[in-house]
């Protein structure tokens, strides 16, 4: 009996927290915005600022992959490929064609999204593990093209002298907190985008595909179309993140910045934070970026510990640190609410006339 009561209590706590956040979400967002925007002015060290930028970047990458893995259930091990495409398109457009950073960033995202479309096509024939394998191969092939196509990508030498982004004469860089502001805006936009996608018809279709593809087909969801859409959206976000990475990495990118290990790192962010949640991506990115910094005193042991932590995490909390199911009541759309009210009214009318 005590155990049951305890369970209800703990469930109640989660509900209370979620309810609190839901009720005061306007105030909380304002406080968050004020705190987040004041960070560059409180005089943090350069290393801390860089860490914050990396956390923002990996939150964004996590959210991109989460769309595909967390919502749609398609496991991709090749997101470093999209990341590389976004970075290279953005960097090369700036260096060789003199395109403005913001436009180049967008084009990088679009090109990456288009490649996502192409890679999404095999999803019609492949599923599960085989799909993961193709994405893994895709990542390696992107590496090969970057290394081999020297006339365009500069091969192993990498792209150098990538200019810093500018807007109305203001140059964004690490020192003045400009990078931080850019990634803050990008990450918040991505989070909002993901939030709206999740609560839209598209998002529900994604989740239906993840839960049971066959049942989703039976409910009239065009699964192949939605799977490709998930790939495109995910690749687009990852491409934008890549474009941003190309300017923050001391104006220099090379093919080895985008290896299979990066794919695994992005995947770890998603898994550690909590599959299918947005809060989890920020948390996962924070943990994984902080880890090597905090445990610096362990020297080489820290990566052994990192592996141990991953294994332990999967044993005891495979849904991720913040990967709980929401306990709040399901939010209906306005149209559905109207329909329900109409039905209610009609039922009342009917009972009155009786």
């Amino acid at each position, binding site marked *: 009996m005590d155990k049951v009561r305890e369970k209800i209590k703990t469930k109640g706590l989660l509900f209370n927290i979620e309810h609190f956040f839901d009720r005061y979400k306007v105030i909380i967002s304002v406080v968050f915005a004020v705190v987040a925007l004041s960070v560059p002015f409180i005089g943090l060290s350069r290393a801390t600022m860089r860490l914050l930028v990396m956390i923002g970047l990996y939150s964004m990458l996590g959210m991109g992959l989460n769309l595909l893995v967390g919502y749609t259930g398609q496991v991709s091990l090749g997101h470093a490929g999209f990341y590389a495409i976004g970075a290279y398109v953005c960097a090369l457009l700036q260096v060789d064609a003199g395109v403005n950073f913001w436009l180049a960033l967008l084009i990088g995202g679009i090109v990456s999204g288009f490649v996502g479309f192409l890679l999404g096509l095999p999803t019609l024939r492949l599923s*599960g593990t085989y799909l993961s394998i193709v994405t893994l191969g895709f990542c*390696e092939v992107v590496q*090969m093209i970057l290394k*081999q196509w020297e006339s365009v990508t500069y091969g192993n030498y990498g792209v150098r002298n990538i200019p810093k982004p500018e807007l109305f004469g203001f140059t964004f860089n690490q020192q003045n907190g400009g990078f931080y502001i850019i990634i803050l805006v990008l990450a918040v936009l991505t989070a909002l985008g993901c939030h709206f996608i999740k609560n839209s018809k598209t998002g529900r279709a994604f989740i239906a595909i993840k839960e049971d593809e066959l049942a989703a087909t039976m409910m009239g969801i065009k699964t192949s179309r939605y799977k490709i859409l998930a790939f495109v959206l995910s690749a687009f976000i990852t491409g934008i993140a890549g474009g941003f990475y190309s300017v923050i990495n001391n104006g220099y990118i090379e093919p080895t910045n985008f290896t299979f290990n990066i794919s695994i790192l992005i995947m770890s962010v998603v898994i550690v934070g909590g599959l299918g949640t947005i809060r989890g991506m920020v948390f996962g990115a924070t943990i994984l970026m902080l880890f090597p910094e905090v445990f610096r005193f362990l020297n080489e042991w820290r990566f052994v510990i990192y592996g141990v932590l*991953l294994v332990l995490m999967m044993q005891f909390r495979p849904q991720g640190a913040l990967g709980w199911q929401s306990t709040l009541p399901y939010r209906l759309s306005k149209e559905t609410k109207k329909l329900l009210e109409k039905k209610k009214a009609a039922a009342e009318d009917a009972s009155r006339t009786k």
Partner: protein
Amino acid sequence: MHALIGTLINGIALGMAYALIAVGYSMVFGILRLINFAHGAMYAFGAYMVYFFVSLKLGLLPAIMLSILMSGILALLIDKVALEPLRKKKSIPIATLITTVGMSFIIQNFLSIEYIFTSEKKGFPSLNLFGSFTVGNVTIQSSQLIMFVVALILLAILTLLVNKTKIGLAMRATEQNVKAANLMGINVNFIISFTFFLGGATAAIAGALISGYYQVISPTMGSLIGLKAFSAAVVGGIGILYGSVVGGLVVGVAECLAAQYLGSNVRDPMAFVILIIILIIKPTGLFGKKGISKV
């Protein structure tokens, strides 16, 4: 012309060693539907164990034997410690995948710790035991020949084991249907652990053979070769032993030809190019059977 034949011989010898690693992936995947990302690290571990026992002046052959045993036990441990509890809890597949990634992290970084082996590359005893000999215009190194012959014999033994023995029958049964196999009185967990042991042992042998050929080892040497061998397994049809051999040979030869005629940057991704093409044309690989999913 003899440059071409030399490249082919090189490719075939390497391909057989790839096949040996691929078989390990294939067996585990066949039973658990799991990409064992720790397999590449196990290959590196095997090579390092040989290096370690050779440095203890045990002689090459006993060192290899001990390394096989150690790697097999390591694979067994990974299964018992990390994967079996997940199976019992019926975890989501991605949790198992990440667990093997974590395991490969542990092994790889353990090997590169300063007090143990350090992250630097190390020289490995050559397997070029009988020098090299010339047939016509083509020179064959004895390490290539040893690689080919040993891998061939082992693959033959494995095939016999799987197809002719009782434990092989149990392995095939488990592969087809875990639940039904369990009902027929097969100790499924033992079979899975045994499969992992075999995988670890073959990875260690492949590690010794390939390192003996290149004569250099490093802690991260397993990751790329692991992925390549995995592609080889998929190209041939994962879960099918002779498929892994064909896949390994295709990847090995294609790789050497690409390095010879297209440039060294093309060498490593060649396996993945073949993989993607094959999977798009025939999603189950060259010899793969089509699985029927029931509702």
